């Protein structure tokens, strides 16, 4: 696998992770009785941002592309 291909896969995985956390936290908030979907989405929003910061701070430097 080329460095460029690997880098794109890593990015796609990270995007999937933050969006997955957003959806998951929203569903959890609904499950635990959030007043409405908008309020549940707010919990998703907070979880999304927290995951995003964690992903950025823990990610390795992308491989060099030729």
């Amino acid at each position, binding site marked *: 696998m080329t460095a460029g291909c690997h880098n794109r896969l890593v990015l796609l995985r990270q995007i999937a992770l933050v969006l997955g956390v957003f959806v998951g936290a929203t569903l959890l908030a609904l499950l635990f009785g959030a007043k409405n979907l908008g309020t549940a989405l*707010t919990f998703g929003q907070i979880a999304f941002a927290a995951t995003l910061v964690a992903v950025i701070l823990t990610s390795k430097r992308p491989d060099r592309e030729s």
Partner: protein
Amino acid sequence: MIAHLHIGGITIQTFGIFFALNFISWGLVAAKRLGELGKPPDWAYEIVVAAVLGGLIGARAYYLIQNHGSLHGSLLGNVFGGSGLVWYGGLLGGTIAVLLWARWRGFFSLQLVDIAAIGLPLGYAIGRIGCQVAGDGDYGKPSHLPWAMGYADGTTPTPPGVTAQPTPIYETVSMGLVALVLWHLRDRFRPGVLFAMYLVLAGLERLIVEFWRRNNHVLGGLTAPQLESIGLVIAGAIALSLTARRHGGLGRASRGATLAAAA
């Protein structure tokens, strides 16, 4: 929505919590990037202090200029009043303050601007959580979409029974993804290109979201932030075009070039 938290007799504004978290995240990301560039990570804290001070002054000044007709009382009372911060004013004030810091530190370079290109959308994404939780009026137009919601307890409450589009959520997700993509591309382009991309993407995001927000139209059916966004998109596109023409492309040759440019 929860505009205030009362902890041990102290009232804390929830917007303020996310405002602080925005700058903390900014500092952590900047420290990591400075380390990658072979610069002292401690500089990140100096950058954050400069950005906070300049950003607050700029955001407040912009608000006072925009609303000078509707303000009452003394000038000092208005300047140090409790609310009224405008993002674009903060961006301008923060940028000027950080550039002054960079000049003092001898780090007046496009590398620094590219660090801001990641910190700005990340900070924006976190700051918008504060807008959403506080219900400060940055929500959208009245709507009956399944995810529309009321902000009855917000600092700028919606009327009873009225639900609005939660546009701060749209903005957190879109600008958060912009931050992630730009972070991923940080070594791929020539210095300054990341920031030009940020200008284009941030401008497009705000231009689109404004169609759901409730700001007044000022010219040609567009709101003031939309006009400012068009300016950002044009500035970014010009910068990208000039860089591509001058260097025959936007890409950088190697990671060695990153370190060489930073040295």
